[in-house]
């Protein structure tokens, strides 16, 4: 009898523990359902002709909540700044936020809702490429601009004349890494490449090889590996045997592990990586092994970077966390729409006019110049960063060709 009771209590404990742990995984995401940030418009006075409204579709809840809330904060910062400076062409900017939870179906519903609201002149969002691609046919039908801060799938922007993205894709980025960074900046004659065996890694590798062959650099090894790989020693031995001057790593999360294992193997090639971005985590995980690493990034947002300090401080005050490049892109979206509207001048601010103006808009902000290619895909500039004494140093500013 007693055994039965213990058995039941144990089962209950296990079951409730499992449920709780699952619930806890989700709870961090939906802590704050965000309110609309229409107060942005009210904050500035002056002689205003009225307001221009943008819709923002962002994953405020769900797995990507961190980025969605970053979008909300960053667009509010941009709108507040523009409004405080007297607005754009005398108009105040207002942003209406809706939560897509990174679900393509919800995102498409919100896109329809925004498109049917005549007050909304353009839509900013969504976070994931798949959400943006679900929204594309809708904005195409209603002829309303959809400007995504982060969609990097090369197939998204060509879907419609009205689809734009400010995030770069590898078709623009990787050839530059091969030609300018590895070829010209590092000045190496031979390189070994290791890349992640995913859609992203395979296409990035192809674009990189393209740039390398243009620069006439010898590729002595080109090795793929699986995402869950933990032991890179055999690939490293292979690359080492090729006697390449430099190793280029195309990956995100595995880069620190790979760098550590290269150093542990007693080999000292020049190291360059494309993908992980200049994060603090990378320095923590590599320690002194990161010294001399060359890394490319489209933005470098820290407290001590004077160009982005103002944005960093404002973002931190509102969101209690440091901004990422994704938030910066959302900020750029508002600025680009504003400069598109500015270039329309005294003409009618219609959805069509915004689309036409946006095509030729170039925005020169705190993180370099942003413009669009012929399809509406983002073209950004990049920094070349190096690691010295455990810190990132900007070696070449934006515009290195």
């Amino acid at each position, binding site marked *: 009898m007693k*055994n039965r009771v*213990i*058995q039941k209590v*144990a089962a209950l*404990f*296990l*079951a409730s*523990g*499992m449920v709780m*742990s*699952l619930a*806890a*995984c989700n709870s961090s995401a939906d802590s704050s359902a965000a309110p609309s940030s229409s107060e942005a418009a009210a904050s500035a006075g002056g002689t205003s002709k009225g307001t221009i409204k943008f819709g923002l579709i962002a994953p405020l809840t769900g797995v990507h909540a961190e980025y969605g809330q970053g979008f909300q904060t960053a667009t509010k910062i941009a709108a507040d700044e523009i409004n405080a400076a007297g607005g754009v062409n005398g108009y105040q900017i207002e942003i209406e936020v809706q939560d897509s939870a990174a679900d393509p179906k919800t995102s498409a519903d919100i896109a329809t809702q925004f498109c049917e609201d005549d007050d909304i002149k353009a839509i900013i969002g969504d976070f994931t490429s798949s959400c943006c691609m679900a929204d594309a046919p809708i904005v195409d039908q209603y002829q309303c601009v959809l400007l995504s801060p982060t969609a990097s799938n090369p197939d998204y922007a060509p879907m419609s004349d009205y689809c734009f993205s400010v995030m770069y894709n590898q078709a623009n980025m990787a050839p530059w890494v091969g030609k300018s960074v590895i070829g010209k900046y590092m000045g190496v004659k031979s390189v070994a490449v290791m890349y992640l*065996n995913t859609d992203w890694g395979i296409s990035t590798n192809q674009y990189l090889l393209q740039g390398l062959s243009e620069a006439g650099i010898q590729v002595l090894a080109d*090795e*793929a*590996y*699986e995402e*869950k*790989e*933990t*032991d*890179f*020693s*055999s*690939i490293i*031995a*292979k690359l*080492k*045997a090729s006697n390449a001057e430099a190793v280029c790593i195309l990956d995100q*999360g595995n880069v*620190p*592990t790979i760098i*550590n*294992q290269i150093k*542990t*193997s*007693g080999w000292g090639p020049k190291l360059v990586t494309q993908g992980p971005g200049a994060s603090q*985590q990378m320095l*923590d*995980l*590599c*320690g002194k*092994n990161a010294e001399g690493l060359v890394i490319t990034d489209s933005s470098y947002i820290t407290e001590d970077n004077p160009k982005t300090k103002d944005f960093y401080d404002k973002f931190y005050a509102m969101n209690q966390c440091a901004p990422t490049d994704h938030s910066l892109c959302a900020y750029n979206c508002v600025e680009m729409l504003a400069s598109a509207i500015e270039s329309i001048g005294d003409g009618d601010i219609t959805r069509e006019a915004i689309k036409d103006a946006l095509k030729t808009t170039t925005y020169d902000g705190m993180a370099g110049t942003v413009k669009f290619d012929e399809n509406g895909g983002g073209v950004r500039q990049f920094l070349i960063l190096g690691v010295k004494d455990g810190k990132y140093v900007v070696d070449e500013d934006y515009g290195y060709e």
Partner: protein
Amino acid sequence: MLSQYMINQLVNGLCQGFIYALIALGFAVIVGIVGLATFTHGEIIMIGAYASYYIFSACGNNLFLGLFASFCASWLVGILVYKLCYEQFLNVPEHISLICTIGFSMLLKNLAQIFFGTEKKPMLDIIDNRIYSLGPVEISKVQIVIMVTVLALSALMMMIFNWTKWGVALRSVSQNREAAALVGINVKQTIMVGNCIGCAMAGVAGMLIGIYYQAIYPTMGATLSMKAFAAATLGGLTSVPLSALGGGILGLIENLGISISSASFRDVFSFGFLIIILIFKPTGFVKRKGVRP
């Protein structure tokens, strides 16, 4: 004539194999010697790694302190696993405790993500890295530490299970629980300690893996424990030294395969090899069919 490159790949493969062997050791103890089914092994590895990580960051890089911490932490978790997943289910079909361990492994993984964070944690320079060259063979200090640990633990386990009174008791329990109880063996306690020894092996493995790969994270055990399972299967699931041998061979096969093709095919070589061996010799490397020692 072997080139320097192939020799290096062999050393890498051997070391990788010893990592698999390290995990397979504990697995063979729990599954083979004690006769329990477990799916929490990967998570115990992770617990051991985190225990040593916190000790290293609190008390400095003292290898023995770290070893002690990971040993104790995984021993304690071993008791918990026994109490929750095995004790009440000793006299019912095995699959009930098997499902329990699957649930418990999810629980541990998720709790670790909540309490330790989902990001990778660095475990740098615990052992001063030095590379020794013996002729054409280059081997690092960490690799030597791992190999020595596996050999020592393997020998120790063999001694405990074959030569001590307690080891004989444990083997009799795994053969026939009722009969063991009749001759005066405390069955439950023996099983619990056996399980804890297996878990402690895993914890120590976790620490060494953390040191070798220089980073730890909550899901680190999952992929490695699959390979260790394969290694233990090669060892017939019953023999500790043969499981270690299975791990070593798997690592060698994988790395030789990678050196002639691509690292994307790592699992093809290891599991392909396992399948081939099992087709021709279903008992793995052991002579007799699945009888517990």
